C-alpha cells in the first residue's frame, strides 16, 4: 500500500495521473487517432479541384434559375392599389370619410384569364407588423381558448388588455389593428352588358391548418359563442365582437376566424400581403377568372393613409413554388453565370501562370 504512494500527486496538487504504473511503459499508443494520422481528405485549393467546382455550380444553377424564372413568369398576378391617395382614384373620397362605412369601387381588366385556383390577397405597405412591441402584444393562451387567460389576459397585451374594466378578447395590439376592409369582386360579363357577376370568394382554407385546429381555439363550452365570450369586450378598434367576425359561417367565428388567424400571423417585413380569399376553380373547362373587366368593391375601413401606408388587392395564381417571384430565378441565373465566368477567368489565369512557373503544384 505504501509503495503506491505517489508524492507527485501531492506536490502537484492536481488530479492524479495513472498511479502505480511504474512497470508499465509510458510509451503512447501508436494508433491513428492518437498520432493524428487519421485518414483525411485534404481539399487543397488547386486549380484541379476549384475550377471544376465553379463550372459545376454554373451548370447546375443556370438551368434551375431558368426553370424558376419560367415558372414564375407563368404565374398570373394582378395588383390593385386602392389606398386612394391619387385624387383620381375612386377611393380618394374615403381618405377623409364623410360617412362610414365608405364604399368605393375600382374597376380593372384582366388581359388574360387566370387558370386554376386564384388567391386573393390584401397587401399592406409600410406597415410594421414586425415591430418588437407590436409582435409581443398578444396572448397566445387566450387565443388558445384558455378560460383564465380569456378573462385575465397577459400583461403583454397592455394597453389593449382591458377596456372599461372588461377584458378584451382578443387582447393586444395585433388583434386591435386587424385589417377590416371588405373586398368583393364582380365580373362584368361583357362590355355591353352591365350585369355584374359576383365572384364567389371562399373565406375558409386560407389559414394554416395547424393554426386553425391547434393554436387557435375558442373558449370551451357548449353554449353559443356569444355566451362563451360574454364577460369580454371587443378590441377598441373593432366594430363588431370577435364572435361575429363572419356573419355567414358560425364555425368561422371567434378566435378561429380565419381572417383573424391570418392577421395574427405577423408579417416578416413592412411590405407584405396576406391571404384574403380563395377563388376555387369551378371545372376544367372554364378559367377561374376569365379575361375581362372586373369591379372591385371595397368597404373602406382600414386607415393607412395617416402613416403613409398603402393598401393593395392582389389576385394571383400559384405554382409549385408559390406565388410570383422573379427574384429567385434571376438570382440563380446570375450566380450561375458569375460562377461560370469566374471559372473561365481563373482557368485562363491559371493556364498563364502555370506556363510561367511550374512549381505551383509542388507547393502546399
Amino acid at each position: 500500500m505504501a509503495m503506491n504512494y505517489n508524492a507527485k500527486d501531492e506536490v502537484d496538487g492536481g488530479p492524479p495521473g495513472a498511479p502505480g504504473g511504474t512497470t508499465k511503459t509510458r510509451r503512447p499508443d501508436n494508433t491513428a487517432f492518437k498520432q493524428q494520422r487519421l485518414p483525411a481528405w485534404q481539399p487543397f485549393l488547386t486549380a484541379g479541384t476549384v475550377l471544376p467546382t465553379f463550372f459545376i455550380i454554373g451548370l447546375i444553377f443556370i438551368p434551375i434559375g431558368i426553370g424558376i424564372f419560367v415558372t414564375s413568369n407563368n404565374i398570373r398576378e394582378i395588383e390593385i392599389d386602392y389606398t386612394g391617395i391619387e385624387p383620381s382614384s375612386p377611393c380618394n373620397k374615403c381618405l377623409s370619410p364623410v360617412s362610414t362605412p365608405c364604399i368605393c369601387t375600382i374597376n380593372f381588366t384582366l388581359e388574360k384569364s387566370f387558370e386554376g385556383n386564384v388567391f386573393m390577397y390584401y397587401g399592406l405597405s409600410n406597415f410594421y407588423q414586425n415591430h418588437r412591441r407590436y409582435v409581443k402584444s398578444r396572448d397566445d393562451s387566450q387565443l388558445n381558448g384558455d378560460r383564465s387567460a380569456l378573462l385575465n389576459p397577459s400583461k403583454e397585451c397592455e394597453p389593449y388588455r382591458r377596456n372599461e374594466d372588461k377584458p378584451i378578447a382578443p387582447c393586444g395590439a395585433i388583434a386591435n389593428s386587424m385589417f377590416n376592409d371588405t373586398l368583393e369582386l364582380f365580373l362584368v360579363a361583357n362590355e355591353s352588358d352591365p350585369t355584374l357577376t359576383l365572384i364567389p370568394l371562399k373565406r375558409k382554407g386560407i389559414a394554416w391548418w395547424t393554426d386553425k385546429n391547434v393554436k387557435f381555439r375558442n373558449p370551451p363550452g357548449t353554449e353559443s359563442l356569444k355566451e362563451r365570450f360574454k364577460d369580454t369586450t371587443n378590441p377598441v378598434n373593432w366594430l363588431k365582437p370577435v364572435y361575429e367576425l363572419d356573419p355567414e359561417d358560425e364555425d368561422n367565428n371567434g378566435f378561429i376566424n380565419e381572417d383573424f388567424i391570418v392577421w395574427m400571423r405577423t408579417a416578416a417585413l413592412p411590405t407584405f400581403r396576406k391571404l384574403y380569399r380563395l377563388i376555387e376553380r369551378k371545372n376544367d373547362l372554364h378559367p377561374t377568372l376569365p379575361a375581362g373587366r372586373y369591379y372591385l368593391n371595397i368597404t373602406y375601413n382600414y386607415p393607412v393613409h395617416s402613416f403613409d401606408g398603402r393598401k393593395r388587392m392582389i389576385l394571383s395564381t400559384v405554382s409549385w413554388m408559390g406565388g410570383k417571384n422573379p427574384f429567385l430565378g434571376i438570382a440563380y441565373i446570375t450566380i450561375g453565370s458569375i460562377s461560370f465566368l469566374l471559372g473561365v477567368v481563373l482557368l485562363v489565369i491559371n493556364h498563364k501562370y502555370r506556363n510561367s512557373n511550374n512549381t505551383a503544384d509542388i507547393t502546399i
Partner: protein
Amino acid sequence: MQRESESTEEPEPPGRRRRRREGRTRTVRSNLLPPPSAEDSVAGATKGERLQRLGCVQHVADNRLKTTKYTLLSFLPKNLFEQFHRLANVYFVFIALLNFVPAVNAFQPGLALAPVLFILAVTAFKDLWEDYSRYRSDHEINHLGCLVFSREEKKYVNRFWKEIHVGDFVRLRCNEIIPADILLLSSSDPDGLCHIETANLDGETNLKRRQVVRGFSELVSEFNPLTFTSVIECEKPNNDLTRFRGCIIHDNGKKAGLYKENLLLRGCTIRNTEAVVGIVIYAGHETKALLNNSGPRYKRSQLERQMNCDVLWCVLLLVCMSLFSAVGHGLWMQRYQDKKALFDVPESDGSSLSPVTAAVYSFLTMIIVLQVLIPISLYVSIEIVKVCQVYFINQDIELYDEETDSQLQCRALNITEDLGQIQYIFSDKTGTLTENKMVFRRCTVSGIEYSHDANAQRLARYQEADSEEEEVPRGGSSQRGSIGSHQSIRILHRSQSTKSYCKKTLGSLLDPTHHVYPFSPQEKDITPDPKLLEKVNECDKYLAISRHQEHPLAQLSPELSDVFDFFIALTICNTVVVTSPDQPRQKASHGVPPRAHDALALLRSPSVVSLPEGDFMSTLSNDSMLFRLEERLGQPTPAIASNGYSSPADSWEPEYPQEPQPKQELRFEAESPDEAALVYAAKAYNCALVDRLHDQVSVELPHLGRLTFELLHTLGFDSIRKRMSVVIRHPLTDEINVYTKGADSVVMDLLLPCSSGQHQNKIRSKTQNYLNLYAMEGLRTLCIAKRVLSKEEYACWLQSHLEAESSVDNREELLFQSAIRLETNLHLLGATGIEDRLQDGVPETITKLRQAGLQIWVLTGDKQETAINIAYACKLLDHDEEVITLNAESQEACAALLDQCLHHVQSRGSYTPEKTESCVNVGFSSLPSLVIDGRSLAYALDKNLEDKFLFLAKQCRSVLCCRSTPLQKSMVVKLVRSKLKAMTLAIGDGANDVSMIQVADVGVGISGQEGMQAVMASDFAVPRFRYLERLLIVHGHWCYSRLANMVLYFFYKNTMFVGLLFWFQFYCGFSASAMIDQWYLIFFNLLFSSLPQLVTGVLDKNVPAHVLLLKPQLYKSGQNREEYRPRAFWLNMVDAAFQSLICFFIPYLAYYDSDVDMFTWGTPITAIALFTFLLHLGIETKTWTWLNWTACVFSIFLFFTVALIYNASCATCYPPSNPYWTMQALLGDPVFYLICLIAPITALLPRWVLEFVSDPFETLSKDCASEASQHTQQPSCSPKTNREPSTVDISVPLREDTVLEDLGAQAPGSSRPDEAVLEACPENSKRKPTSSSQEAPLPSLFNLPSFSSLNWISSLSLVSGLGSVLQLSRSSLQMDKQDGEFLSTPPQPDQDLHGLQGQATDYF
C-alpha cells in the same frame, strides 16, 4: 479501525503540542509526556504564556492532507464567486438579468439565463470533478498506514497518516515513505545513519544520507520514546527543502544543534536502512514538501491576449450597432409618433412613448439581442480545444523517449499555441544542450599535462569503428599531445549524431572480447594515462614501503606528492555515497556478460601480460592499442575500467589477494555527475573510494591497501563560493589537510601568495594555461587544491566553526564566513577537464530552429571558452561568422564597448568597399554573434545600458551569455520579453534555470540528471533537447494555427449571425425585433454550430508534419502572427458582414411582398446561416477526417431535429415567438430549399475565390522568398566568400593577471606566429598581397573605431586582449582545418602552430 485509533487519540489532551508564538521558532516536545506543569522552566514560559499556547494549539496542523478547494456546503457559493472573477461571466449574467426588465426584454427571461447557466455549470462541473479527484487522492494518502508509538500500549501501533501529530514518535522501515517531516532520533544503522531517496521530492535518484541527532547516535540500547524528555526548538514551517535548523535542549540543559541532515522530509523513501525512529516536527500542510506545493500556474497566452483585445472590439461594435439602432428607433418613433400608426403600441397607460425613451429601451434591448456578438462559448471552446491539444501532444509517439521511458509532459494547459509563436529561445547549456553525463577527459597535475590520449582515441573510436589505429603519440612534448587530443575532440563533436547509434551497434558487431567496454557507459569508462598511472603506482608503492616512517610524504618528490594528493582529493573531496548492488534499491544493472568476465580474468593472469605482443593483438583487434600502450610502458597493470569498477592490480601483487566480487561492483551515488566522473577517474588510477561514513572515508589503494581518512568537516558546494572542501586527518602523516575542489576562477585566487617560490608560480601559470586550453576544448574545468593546517590553526578555526554551527539565527552566514576563512592559502595540486557530451541531435535541432527563424541565446554558468566551444560544436556559432566578445570590467567600460559594438555592427550593415581589408567586414553576409560574460552582462542589464545591449543583441544571430547567475538568466529573459515584446521560451534542466523558466512565456524543463526542479517549474517537460524541434515546429505550429483559426472563425461566426439581426432592424423600425426565434438565437452558438469547429480546432492540420519538419521556415507564419493578426480579424469581420448581407437579402428578396410571417421567414435564415458556417468551416478546414464529416452532419441533423421537435412541442408556450409547425411547413416549401442552396454558395463565393487566388500564390511567394533568402545566405558558405573567420574580441580585462609582465615583455614576439597563421590560410593569398600587409588582419583589428577610442585601456590589457584574439583565431583556424578544406595543405603550418603554442603556453 479508524474509529478505534481515533478513540485512542482522543484522551490525549491537546496541550502537549507546543508552539511558541514569540520569535521565529517552534517548540516541539514529546506527546508521550504527561501535560507539562512544572517543567516549564525549560522553555522559560510563564503561566500566561502557557494559556496562550493552549489557545493556539489548533494552529498546529495534524498530518491530514487536504488539497481540496471546496466542501459540500461551500462549493456553490465559492465556485460561483470564483467564476465571476472572469469578466465575461459577469457580462453575460448582466445581460441575462437585463432580460428581466419588462421594458427591454427580448427573450423569455428564463431562457436568456440558460446559456450562462450552462457555461457556469460546465465550468463548475469541471471544478467539481477536479476537486473530487483531489479529494480521492488525499483520502488515499491520508489513509496510508505507519507505525506510531502509543502511550497507552507502550509500543508502536499502526495508525493512518492523517492521525499523526507533531510530537509523535514514528517508526519507519526500509522502503517506507516518510509521512511527515521527522527528526531522526534513532536508526538501526550502527553509525546512526539513514539513507533516503528524494526522488518524489526533487527527482534526484541518488541516495542522501541523514544522520541521527547528535547525542542520540551514541545510545547503546534501543531508543525508547518514553524516556524522551528533551525539547526541540526549530524554525517555523517553511518551504526551503535545503535548510533546517534548530536545536534540541536536553533535560540537563545541554543544547545540540539540528541540521537538515537530521530531518527526514515527507515524501522521501527510506532506503538501505532497516528501521528508524523519529519525532514528528512538521506535519500535514506544514511539511516542507507541501509548503513547496505552489499549485499549477496560470499563464495567459499571447493569442488569448490578442483575442481579448478583439473581444473588446466586438464590444465596441456591439455598442455601435446598438447605438445606431437606438438612434434609428428614436427617429422612427418621431416619424410615426403622431400619425396614429396602427402598429404603434402605446405605453400601458395609453400615453405614447417619447422617442428618447423608446431609443433608450431600444438600445438596451439591442444589447440583449446582439449579445451573441460576444461569443459566450468562446472561452469554453478554447479550453476544450487546448485540453485536446495537450492530449495529442502528450500522446505523440515521436516525442517519446525510449531510453528514459518518458514522454513529453504538458504541465500548463493553456499556452499550447504559444509554442507556435516563439521568437527567442533561451537555453541552458549543461544538461540541456549537453548530456550532463560527465566523462573525465584530461587532467594536469603539478603543472604537467596528462592528455589521456588513449581515452580520447577510444572515445573517438565509438564513432568511427573503422578508424585505423593511430600510433599513440607518446612522450615528447605534452603540448603536442594536447593538440592531438584537441583534434580528436573536434572529431567527437562533429559526429555527435551518430554516436548513440554506434554505441548501440558496436557491441553487437564486434567480436565477443570487445564486451570489455562497449557495454559500459562511458562515464565510468576511463582509460588511465600511462604516465600518470605510472606515477600513481610509484607513489603508492613508495608509500606502502615507507608508511610507517615518520613523514612518509615528505620523502616523495613534490611532484609525486602532488600526484598522490591529487588523487586522494579526487576520491574524497565530494559527497559521493558508495552503495553495493545487493542492497534493495539497486536497479537492474546490466551486468558484465560472462564472456567479458572471462576476458577480464584472462587479462588479469600474468601469463597474458607476458604474451608476445603480436599474438595477442591479433585476437583483440580494435582495442589492442590499449594493451600495446601498457606493453610499451612496461606497466603490466591492466587497469581496465569496465562497468564501473577497475580491478586493482592485485594479480600482479601477490600479497594483496583478489578482492571479493561484490566489492568490485560498487556504485557511486553522486549529487552531481561531475563528482561521479572524478571518483570514477580516480578509480581508474586504482585509487578507489570504497566507503564513506559521516566521519570517515576509506580509500583503497593497490599497495597501500585501505586508507581510512578521518573526515573532520565537509564544507559543501555552494554557488557563491563555487567550491567545496573537506577537512580530513591524513592517516599517513596525521596532519590535518584541507582538500578543495572548485572553479578555477575562484580557486586560483585563493592560492598561496606568489612569494612561495618560482616553482609554484610556474606550476600555477602552466596550470592556468592548460585550464584555458581545456576550456577552449569545451571541457569543464575544476581546480584541485590542498592546504595543510597546523594543529593550532585548525584548533583556532574549529572553535569559530563550531560556534557558527551551533548558532541558530544566521548559521548559514557564519558557516559561509567560516568556510572562507578555511579556504585560503591553498596549494595548487592540479586541474581536471571533464567532458560533457552534446546530446543527440542538438546541432541538427539548432539548425532547424534557426531556419524556423528562432533566435537562440545560450545562457550558461560555464566559462566563456567552454561555452564558446560547445556553441561551435552545436552549430550555434559558425566558423565563418563574426563573434563579438564583450568583456567589460566596469560600468563605463561596458557602456563604451556597447557603443563601439553597435557602431561596428551598424557600419557593417552599411558595407563599404574601402573596408574590405578589415577583418571585420569579411563575414558581412551573415550576422555576427555576441558573446558576453556574466560580469559584463550585469553591467549591460543596467537600466541605462539595457536598451543598447538589447539593440546590439537583436542584430546578432545568436547570443551567448557565459558565467551568468540564475538571476541574470531570468533578467535577460525578462528584458527581451518586455522590451522586444517577443515571445520567449526558456529551456533548462537544473535548479539554476528555474527562475528563467518561470519568467519566460513558455518554460520548458528537461527531465535530466539534475533533478526535477526545472520540470516542476516548467510548462512543458521534454526528455531531450532535440524534441524541442518537433514540439515547436510541428505541434507549436499546429496548435497556433488551429487555435488562431478557431478564434477567428468564432468572431466571424458571431459577427455574421449578428449581422443578420442588424440588417433586419432596417425593416422593423429599429425596434430590436428579431426574426430568428429566441431559441435559435440563444442556442445556435452553443449547440448547433459548435461541434464542427471544435473538431477542426482540435484536429486540423494546415500543413502535414513532415512538410513542417522539412520546411522549418513555415514556422515563421506563427512568429509573425500571420494567421491571427488584426488584418485577418478585420478581413473576417468584413467577410462576415458581406456574408450576412447575402444571407439576409436573398431570403428578403425571395420573400419580398409575400404572405410570409416573421418566424417562417427567420427560420430559413437560421438554416442558411448554419449552412454557410459549415461551408465556411469546410473551406478553412484543410484536412477532413471522418470526425469532421460526422460533426458537420451531426450539426445539421441536430438543428433540424431540435427545430422539428421544438416547433411541434407546444403551440402557445414560447411567447413572443410562435414557432408552432413552422419548420414542418417550411420543409414542404420548395423556396426554402432553393434559398438554402443559393445563399450559402453566394455568400462564400468571394472567400472561395480569394482563397484560391491567394493560397497557391502566397505559398509560392513564400517559397520564393525562402529560396531567395537561401540564396543570399549561400555566398557565406560558398568558397568565394568563405574567408578566414573573423574575430572581433573587444575585451577589457582588468583582472589581476600574475603573468602580465611576462606577457608584456614577449608581446612583440606574439605577432610572429600570427604570420604563420595567415599563411596557413590559403584564402589570404588571394585576398591580399603577401608582401605588404602580412600583419594586416591583426592591426586592422586595432584600427577599428572601437580600439582607437579605447585610449584609456592600459597597454597591458590591450596586449592581453591581443592574446585572446590570437587564441581565438588559432582555435577557429584549427576548426577550419577540420572541415577538410585544407587537406591539401602541407603539415608545415601545423608545426608552426605548435611553435606558437609552445611560445604561447609560456606566457599565459
